[in-house]
Structure formats: structure tokens, C-alpha cells
């Protein structure tokens, strides 16, 4: 197990470097990091040259990247162009997005897996076809449309929720945005669980469990579900990174000041340090989540052993 973890950690290094380098290049080479500093006007050449020197932008790109990564590993993500340290922005933004992501994941697990089990056990019945159709529709409607519609209905027409989230962004306020964020993944989780359950339902160990007289509830929860959850766990694990990145849309609709909001602002204002810093953390989150998922396999299915 220990050796496996070390091997996986080593494998993460090139992926981490590649992904951050890609984003770094996109921001620094294709964009003009200085342009954002002078607002909408063009920078005058003397100022631009001075700024470039100040931020080290006159050096070759690979050197900039190395310097940046060196700083990151000492906890210094640089300063945004307004002088605020990027770590400070992260400290305010990440808790909000983490709350949002937790709500989304809880929705995925509770609703998604429940619906998946129910439909998987009743494959071909009306409830199955109904849920399947609903998941198809949910997958087809892009998140920003779902978000705008729920905001229109619940927030504006019926007044059940406030259309925009306050700066505190408490758990209560984030329920509807969390549902919106989760919606598409929720549908995938349902479909994945359904397929998995329906496949395993016919397996020998389930027949044995039923034959030895176990109550149906125990057969489903202990035998069937545990074996069927592996692809679902994989999906949810890889989804954590996608959810935090995908929060850009949800956070924009509901005016939540989280990671997505900061990233969106950073990108529009060409605030290089903010963008690269946030993306670096997101990539790390994605990689760690993937690693945890792989380790979780062994817990779910003792047949998998990591040497």
C-alpha cells in the first residue's frame, strides 16, 4: 500500500507540472499580462517596460515558470495586480466554493445513488423509464440554463429563495446553487449506479445471499450496493475537480463570491497571478481527489490489493 501511494504520488508530478505549465503558457504567452494593469487604455511603452521588469516578465517564459513554482512551494502565490496577496483572495474564496462543492456532492450521493438503486432494481418498469428520461433531460439542459430557470422560478416568481447569495454564503443559501451545480453530475451518478446495480443484480453472490435467506434490505445494502459502487465512486472522485472548476457558471448566476467568481474576474481583467494561482490549486485538488478514489477502492472491494 505504502509503495503504491508513493508510486502514484510520483506519477502525479509530471501531470501537475504539465497542467500548470499549460495554463501558465496560455495566460502568459497568449495573453498580455501587462494589459490588465492599465485598465482599458493601452499602456505607454515606458510604463510597460518598467512593469515588465518589476514583475520579472522580461525574463524567458520557462524562467518565469520556474520562479513561480518555486514561490508556490514556499506558500507564496504572488500578489494580484491590485496589491492583494493571492493567498488572501484564496482564503476568502475557497471556503465558499468548498461549501458549495460539499452540498453538490451530498446531493450527488444521496439523490443520485438512491435513484440509481431504485431504478436499477426495477429495470424496465415505469419508474425506471421515467427517471431515465428525467436524467436525459437534465443532462441535455446546460447548467447555466438550469441555473437561470431555477433563479427565475424560485427566486423571482415564487420568492422561495433570494435570487443572489449574500457575501456570507452560508450553507442554507447555497442549497439551490449546489443543486444546480450538481444537476448534470447527479444525472450521471443515477445512470451509472443504475447500470452497475442492474449488472450485478444477476451475479452469483447476490443469488447466494438471497438463497441463504438474508433479508432483501441486507442483500441490497451489504452485497449489491458495495460491489456496485466502484464506478460511481470513481466518477464522484473525478467530479470534485470538475465541480470546483465548473462553479464558474453557477457562481456567476447566483453572484457567489467563490473560486469561480475570482477566476472569472481574474481572467477578464487579465490578472495573471490570480488565475495561475487558483488553477494550480484546482489541479492539485483534482489530482489528490483521484488518488483518494484509488485508495478507496481497496476499502470498498477487498479483492483489490495494492502492493
Amino acid at each position, binding site marked *: 500500500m505504502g509503495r503504491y501511494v508513493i508510486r502514484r504520488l510520483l506519477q502525479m508530478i509530471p501531470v501537475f507540472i504539465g497542467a500548470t505549465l499549460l495554463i501558465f503558457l496560455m495566460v502568459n504567452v497568449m495573453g498580455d499580462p501587462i494589459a490588465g494593469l492599465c485598465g482599458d487604455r493601452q499602456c505607454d511603452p515606458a510604463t510597460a517596460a518598467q512593469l515588465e521588469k518589476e514583475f520579472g516578465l522580461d525574463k524567458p517564459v520557462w524562467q518565469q515558470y520556474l520562479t513561480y513554482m518555486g514561490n508556490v512551494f514556499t506558500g507564496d502565490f504572488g500578489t494580484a495586480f491590485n496589491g492583494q496577496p493571492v493567498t488572501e483572495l484564496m482564503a476568502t474564496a475557497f471556503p465558499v466554493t468548498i461549501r458549495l462543492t460539499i452540498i453538490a456532492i451530498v446531493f450527488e450521493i444521496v439523490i443520485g445513488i438512491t435513484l440509481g438503486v431504485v431504478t436499477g432494481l426495477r429495470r424496465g418498469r415505469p419508474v425506471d423509464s421515467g427517471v431515465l428520461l428525467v436524467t436525459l433531460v437534465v443532462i441535455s439542459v446546460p447548467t447555466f440554463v438550469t441555473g437561470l430557470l431555477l433563479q427565475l422560478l424560485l427566486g423571482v416568481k415564487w420568492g422561495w429563495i433570494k435570487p443572489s447569495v449574500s457575501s456570507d454564503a452560508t450553507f442554507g443559501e447555497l442549497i439551490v446553487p449546489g443543486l444546480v451545480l450538481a444537476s448534470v453530475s447527479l444525472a450521471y451518478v443515477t445512470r451509472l449506479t443504475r447500470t452497475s446495480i442492474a449488472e450485478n443484480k444477476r451475479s452469483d453472490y447476490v443469488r447466494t445471499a438471497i438463497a441463504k435467506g438474508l433479508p432483501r434490505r441486507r442483500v441490497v445494502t451489504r452485497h449489491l450496493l458495495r460491489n456496485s459502487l466502484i464506478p460511481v465512486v470513481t466518477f464522484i472522485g473525478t467530479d470534485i475537480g470538475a465541480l470546483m*472548476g465548473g462553479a464558474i457558471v453557477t457562481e456567476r448566476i447566483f453572484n457567489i463570491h467563490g473560486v469561480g467568481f475570482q477566476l472569472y474576474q481574474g481572467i477578464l481583467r487579465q490578472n495573471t497571478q490570480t488565475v495561475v494561482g487558483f488553477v494550480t490549486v484546482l489541479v492539485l485538488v483534482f489530482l489528490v481527489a483521484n488518488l483518494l478514489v484509488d485508495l478507496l477502492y481497496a476499502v470498498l472491494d477487498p479483492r483489490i490489493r495494492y*502492493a
Partner: protein
Amino acid sequence: MPEPMPPEPLLSGGGRVPEDGAIAATGMGGAMDLATAEGETLERAPAGPDGTGPTDRPRSLWSDAWRDLRRNPVFILSGLVILFLVFVSLWPSVIASGSPLKCDLAKAQEGSQQGAPFGYDGQGCNVYTRTVYGARTSVTVGVLATLGVALFGSVLGGLAGFFGGVWDSVLSRITDIFFAIPVVLGGLVLLSVVTSNTVWPVIGFMVLLGWPQISRIARGSVITAKQNDYVQAARALGASNSRMLLRHIAPNAVAPVIVVATIALGTYIALEATLSYLGVGLKPPTVSWGIDISAASPYIRNAPHALLWPSGALALTVLAFIMLGDAVRDALDPKLR
């Protein structure tokens, strides 16, 4: 070093894909996960013709699939919707008169009326005309992006799967890198610096971030196909690499790619709209559902119709492609027969 022992060939082609670790990444960000998951389901299925029917005439996987599809109402329904969409994108003026760019501020936010069944948006543009003309953009972006992704991804993935070795490992690591970048995020970063008004940057971006998905699928299914006896036989008979690839492997490995590409087409259309909604995708004067939805969202209280119609058209289009992909997958998966 002992490899982790998979319980059963869960996510890899026949359990023999030398994918190290138990990495089973399901996709590149929310929008494209279904395609991968479904593709991987299909990948497990033994590819190739599944024997002869009750009559003695041999039937290929494709003619079997076609027979199934013709009787599948989901396929017929989604096929009709897609045909209609293609027709509308080619000749929008047949069902909508007037120009989508002709707007009259005096009519801003007015509801449904003669000549404008969907009403007018915040700028006084005819929502019906704009919705009809928006189909062209969406279909163009979706089809071109899918073609690019499918071509690029299946060639790279297929070659890596066939030849294996160093390039295979390198390619696998490169796809890992692309999977670690959330799609919408990558789109924002990359497209925010582009000033072009055409659809090409958006298509280029989708190909750039979409190919690893297809490449993984193609790699897996080529690895499965190349272990078949008839491929080994062809090799023993001295067939060249290109002949084995084109004549024996490609026809038997292409099914999962087609399915994933069809479903991905729908998600690319949704992605284009999402990027346009965020203001980095297509830019006016291009008529796009994403732009219209974005423009209508501030008037959501007074003129919800300007938001609902393009949203509905968008959702219907995406739904049609996903349902088509679903139906094709069911038809091509011999396990479900």
C-alpha cells in the same frame, strides 16, 4: 512491482489494457463525462461481428445495428429532430423571414405577436428569427468540433494503442494532463485572449481539449481489437502494419469512437453555448443561442420569453444528439442483444 489486481475487467478493454494504477478517470470535466463512461461500457463488449443469424446469410455488426436502430423509436425521433436542425441550419430563411440582425428598439421586450411568435428581446430583435438562425452556429460548431476531435483523437489514440511502447506511455501521460484541466476553465483562459469574431477559435479550443477523451477510447478499443485471433492470423500471414490497422483493426474498433463522438457532439453544442454565455465564446454579430441567453438574462423578470425560447432550442438540440448516441450505443452493444 506487482500491479494492483482489478476485481474484474471493470473499466479497461477486456482487462488487458496495460493502464498502470487503477486510474479510471471518467472524463474531462462535467460536460463530457457521460460520453466517456458510456464509451467505456461499450469498449468492454467484444467488438466484431457476432456470428451468423438464424439464416445462413452472415450479418455484420453494422447491419445488425441498423436493423435494431430502424425499429427504435428513440432513434427515429432524435433522427428526425436532427434532420430538421440540419435543414434549418442550411436554409433558415425557409421558416423564418427577415434578418436576425434587424432589430427595432421600440419593440423591445414585447411579447408574442403577429410575425414574431416568440416575441422580442431586450434589443427589440425578433426572438423567433434569432432562435432559428442560431441553429446554424450551434450545429456548425458541434459538427466541426466533433469531426476534428474524432479524427485527431482516434488517429493518435489508435496508433498509440497499436504500436504501444514509449509513445503510448507518453500519450497516456499527455491525456492525463489534459484531463486535469477543467474544460470551462481552460476555455475561459484560452478564449479570453482571442479577439476573432469567427467560430474557428471556439472549434479549435474544443479540438484541443476534447481529443484526449476520444484518444483514450480509441486506444482502448484498438488494444482490445488487436488481440483478436484474426489480427494475429493476419500478422502471421505477413500483413503489413497499415493493412492490419486499416483492414482488420479499424473496422472493429471504430464503434465506441462513433458512440462517444455522437454524444460528445451534443455536449460540445452545450459547451459552445456555455462559453458564449460567459462572454468568451462566440461574439456578436454571430447569432448564437448562448449569446442570446446571456443577453436575455438581465431582463429575466420582464421578458422571460427571450430567455426561454433559445434555452429550449438549445436543450432540445443537445437532447437529440445525446439520445441518438444512446440509441446507437444500444444497437452496437452486442451484450444487450
